[in-house]
């Protein structure tokens, strides 16, 4: 219960995030753009998806629509630095658990949320 797909186009953020999560014991697969994220998801559904909104080729909304169309169900967290936030209705529509504002996010807080979801999932499976 520790496979995370991290879809983030910024190399520095991607590196920092992966580093911290792997330090926390998660297995992190990277996708540099929305198209890569869709391909990875279709190949092997993750335990948790960390999805950046602003990405080249296919943006975060495109990926969410693909997931919805496919009917995939796995925990999704959005990462955004847009000045416009996502509305609660949009979160509900795509089954997003939370949207983190990267500039306000502590990596430790992110890791904490991942641990919590992973723990819940483990209990559910059990």
């Amino acid at each position, binding site marked *: 219960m520790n496979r995370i797909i991290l879809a983030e186009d910024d190399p520095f953020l991607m590196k*920092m995030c992966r*580093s911290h999560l792997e330090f926390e014991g998660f297995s992190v697969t990277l996708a540099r753009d929305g198209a890569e994220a869709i391909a990875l998801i279709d190949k092997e559904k993750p335990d948790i998806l960390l999805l950046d909104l*602003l990405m080249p080729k296919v943006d975060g909304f495109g990926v969410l629509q693909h997931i919805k169309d496919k009917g995939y169900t796995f925990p999704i967290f959005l990462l955004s630095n847009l*000045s416009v936030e996502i509305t609660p209705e949009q979160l509900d529509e795509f089954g997003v658990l939370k949207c983190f504002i990267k500039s306000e996010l502590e990596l430790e807080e992110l890791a904490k949320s991942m641990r919590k979801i992973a723990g819940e999932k483990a209990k559910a499976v059990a």
Partner: protein
Amino acid sequence: MIPQAVLAQRQPSLLPAFEKFEKKENEKKKKLNKSAKSRSMHEKDTAAEANAFLQTIVGSISEGIIVQSRSGLVFANKYAARMCGFDSVEEYLSATPAKIMERFELLSEDGSPYPLSNLPNRRVLAGEKVTEPVTVRYRVKATGEEFWSVIRSEPVHGPDGEVLYALNVFHDITKEKRQERLSNFINKASAVLSSSLDHRVIIQNVSDLVVPDIADWCGVTLMRDDGTLDPVSVVHFDPAKVRWAIEYREKYPATRESSPSTFRIIETGKAELYKTITNEMLEAGSQGDPQRLKVIQELGMCSAMAVPLTARGKTYGVLSFVSAESKRQFDETDLSFAEDLGRRIGIAIANAHLYQEARDALDEQFTTQEALKRSEYQYRLLLERLPVGAYTCDAEGRITYFNPQAEAVWGRAPKLNDLSERFSGAFKIYSSEGSLIKREESWMAKALETGHSYWGKETVLERPDGSRITGLTHISPIHESGRIVGAVNIFVDITKLKRVEQAKSEFVSLASHQLRTPLTAVRWALDALQSERAGALTEFQREMVADAAKCSLHMSETIATMLMISRIEADDLELEIADVHIAELLGEIHSEQKPMFHRRQQSVSFECSDDLVIPTDRKILKEIATNLVSNAVKYTPKNGRIRISARREGNHFWLEVEDNGYGIPKDQHDRIFTKFFRAQNVVLKEKEGTGLGLYLVKLLMDLLKGDISFVSEEEKGTTFRVQISPIAA
């Protein structure tokens, strides 16, 4: 003996009697031829009889007959004596010619003195052959009466052919002449009455005609609307007397007491004749003022008449005639003429008033029409010159006018007054969301239906070439007499503005992303370093990393604040109203700020009842509260005290953030809500402030339509007070 010819001309009915008498005399003569004594006696009897018969016949002739010799009158009938102002024939015959002439003024028809030598009787006695009758006008000095006579004179020859007598017949044509004069006057007056539509001019001109032919004084008094009298004109042939009369009237204005007859005539509409003006009348007019009486008496008024000026049932005033110097005496004939003149003047005044009313109405209509034309012209000009599109529709939505700018925006010129092009000249209309709008559902159609104005409505207009523009429309219906007669639409092309707004919004979004993303990377890297996941740090390294982390946080906060301010200023922030649980909100802020006030060892208290809920925008309220609490923590020294409280009072929500920190210097109170302001007393103490926090708070308070105030004293602390009225969701 009277020439038979004269008798035949003047009294043909007496001819048979005269012929009978003559025949009888001839028979008598024949019988008495033989005796001289008898003849003499008979002749005496005959003469006496003849004289008596003559007197009887001549006396019954209603014409003046006199027979005069060069030494005087030898015969006159009663009529002649009366015409000359004598009570009897005997008195008349005993008077000398000079005495007789003293009684008269002989005048020509035009009123100029008539030379005595021109009289036909004198000419006949002088041996002149006078075949034509002569018309003479004469005035009896004693009474002022005027008469006209046609005089015929025939010579009576003696046995040797010498003219012994002049036989004069005076035919009185006074009545006809007066009638003729009055008719002529009426004709002249009619011409004057129709020469002007100004009633004052009419009155003055007619009064001038009256004097001196009809009267010595002529005056017109009109009644004003307030019931007072207006002495419009007074005329006399002597200008000095006119001036006197005007001054007199100014000194003694006509009142009901002083001029009862004037008021009576106006009120009754009946004329009044004063054949002879008595002293009692003058005394009444002077109202017991002896000086005034003396003045009136000196005028020598002897006869007067006053007539109403009436027309169409209304009496406008009084026309007065007074005889003074001429001593003429007015009678019923004069009064009848005066009443006729009064009616004519009344009609002229009524017509003048009607004309003036019609003229005023026309002027007003003309002025209104001119004003309307001017107004229409100015309106058109205004619409033509507007830098934005404008068009008008009638009540059915047909386009009645559009300006050049509208045509430019539409990219076409719609058909005017055509039902197929109702409500808009655009090819197609869309909402701001992009859905097609039917013409019948457009804002113009709504305005014509409801009669309401619709301002600031965003609409997308499509041109025939497919290009689109975004317009902001302002539609106002036009009402007339309580019904909608049309509407005007002024619309502004805001396409560029929208693009700019969108570009700004995109820029802000992009800037937010592009600035925040690397900062996030920096912060996460510093976090990693600080947590020593990347390896242990020396003390010095730890301090450096800590400083770098603080700077990066400061930069993040500044960017976040600036971006939010940009969004507010770009009108890009929409309120999301919902019930906000205040205790929960303050709890979140407490959690988020706890590391800070723990670090500074400050005591922070939150006071709020658990059931306090207000409808507002949660994010914005949290931003406000966070900024205020953050400021309180920042600007209160170590071990300081901060109190945050929230309560509800009626329909108002109060949030207070109180600290015992550095305070704000009094001379800087008026600047604390301005951009980048930081009070001088804290700049050196605290390096972390951006100077944007309170500016942002003020903007956000304006969005919520709330109010923010504060009290502060340097070195004592500051209390910020926020008041929000609950906003309906």
